[in-house]
């Protein structure tokens, strides 16, 4: 039974709400996951007994449901813009694509492209998840100190692609990983899913990888345009966890962030040479990397972050998360990748000149 102290509805409502007001707030609280047990029972009874209540439920449900769709479309201009043709294709995004245009483009695709895996993956990625790059122009109410422009919690497909070096603007890629729920006592940092590193190389390939890693490109041109031409400093952060294993020697995680003028197609396998190049080309490149030992307590997540001041000549960002651990097998240290998790990766503009949108 809820009490007046923990009743978000009564707390938020006028002293004597009408029955309609009360129902309106019960329905909204259902959508926000804020109903106490007795309030939930009250709402269920109302929905069973009253056609008026059911009509009102659907009216509010349409606002709630379509508001989510609208927010995904409106706040993820780049994510929505990417044509969902092929997860392996490189794209630099573009202007926002309307739902109708998206559907029309889809219908033009050859049948083979519309395979289930593509539909499931991209439908979820583009229309369900839409955890893409947020439009800064709509951030008038956000403090300029920290604007989230990309979030990835691995809640919905597609999972990261398999590749040997950063390639995609619209998709995480890298070594073999798996999206999982609660595993080995590790509970996702946010939501119901997280990413676990399976090996230090893409699936179905093998070489002695050094670390297990994922990466992604971000096009700075769009972010700058949205930010009125200036984009000073960005921060990449991610939460890491390592499962408990008694004989593991210091698993570690890390994030790196590279601002560069090199297009993905010109990246080479030794792309980490960008770090050295950055020191020689400060006008167009900058790089930052943070790595940290992970504790072996599966109950704790550790936030790691890297920040770079974006040079005016830089055109792209490379987001990079990596992890590694060594196991002592009694005679020697054996490198392995299993047992580390990453979740809730976030790219934020931490300093930018953002004009307020005209109203």
């Amino acid at each position: 039974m809820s009490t007046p102290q923990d009743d978000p509805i009564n707390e938020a409502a006028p002293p004597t709400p009408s029955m309609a007001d009360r129902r309106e707030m019960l329905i909204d609280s259902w959508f926000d996951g804020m109903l106490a047990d007795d309030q939930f029972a009250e709402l269920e009874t109302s929905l069973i007994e009253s056609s008026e209540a059911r009509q009102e439920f659907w009216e509010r449900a349409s606002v709630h449901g379509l508001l989510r769709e609208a927010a995904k479309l409106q706040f993820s201009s780049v994510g929505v813009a990417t044509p969902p043709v092929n997860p392996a294709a490189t794209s630099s995004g573009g202007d926002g694509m309307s739902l109708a245009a998206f559907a029309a483009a889809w219908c033009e695709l050859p049948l083979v492209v519309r395979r289930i895996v593509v539909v499931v993956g991209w439908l979820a990625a583009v229309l369900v998840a839409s955890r893409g790059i947020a439009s800064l122009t709509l951030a008038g109410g956000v403090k300029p100190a920290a604007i989230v422009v990309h979030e990835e919690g691995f809640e919905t497909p597609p999972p990261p692609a398999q590749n040997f070096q950063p390639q995609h603007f619209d998709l995480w890629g890298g070594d073999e990983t798996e999206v999982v729920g609660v595993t080995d006592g590790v509970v996702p940092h946010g939501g119901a899913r997280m990413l676990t590193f399976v090996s230090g190389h893409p699936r179905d390939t093998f070489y002695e990888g050094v670390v297990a890693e994922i990466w992604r490109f971000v096009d700075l041109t769009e972010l700058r345009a949205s930010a009125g031409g200036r984009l000073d400093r960005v921060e990449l952060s991610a939460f890491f966890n390592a499962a408990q294993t008694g004989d593991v020697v210091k698993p570690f995680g890390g994030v790196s962030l590279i601002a560069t003028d090199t297009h993905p197609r010109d990246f080479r396998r030794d792309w980490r040479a960008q770090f050295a190049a950055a020191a020689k080309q400060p006008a167009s490149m900058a790089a930052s990397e943070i790595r940290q030992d992970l504790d072996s307590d599966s109950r704790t997540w550790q936030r790691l972050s890297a920040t770079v001041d974006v040079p005016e000549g830089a055109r792209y960002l490379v987001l990079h998360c990596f992890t590694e651990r060594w196991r002592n097998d009694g005679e020697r240290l054996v490198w392995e990748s299993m047992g580390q998790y990453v979740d809730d990766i976030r790219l934020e503009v931490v300093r930018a000149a953002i004009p307020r949108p005209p109203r």
Partner: protein
Amino acid sequence: MLVQQLFVRYAPQLRAYALALAGEFAAADDVIQETFLTVTTKAADFQPETNFLAWSCAIVRLKVLENQRASRRFSPAVIDSLAASASPDLLREERLTLLMACMDALPPKALELVRLRYFSEHGPSEIAQLLGRTVAGVNNGLLKARNAIRDCVAKKLAAGSDGRMEATG
């Protein structure tokens, strides 16, 4: 048109429908993915001349009933009552377009609440922490934002309806 194409076309409406019955964003997304697989498997059962949205909404309803993972879910009786009373008009594609236009008209603070709730998918408690506000204040703000959008959409629909009557009259 393939059922997959129809599914893409009606995806926003189906997700809104699933969200209404499932309550939680993650649960609704799971339902939609399972629905897509079922729609694909049962594609041969769909009669092209019939209503795809109604057919797929029925599958969504079944998936919601099957899905036990949500921390709190409506009883089967409530879901059946709601499913029987759903009006396809409330999920029309036109509403999504109008709703986006109405979002633009929200005050900055309300727009920020909408962004945090529906794009970042934070709950009211998290939003309260992020913004340094009370949960009750956030609930109230969300309620007002939704009401403003509901009224705005209704106004635009009425205006559009009047316009069409004038044009055809």
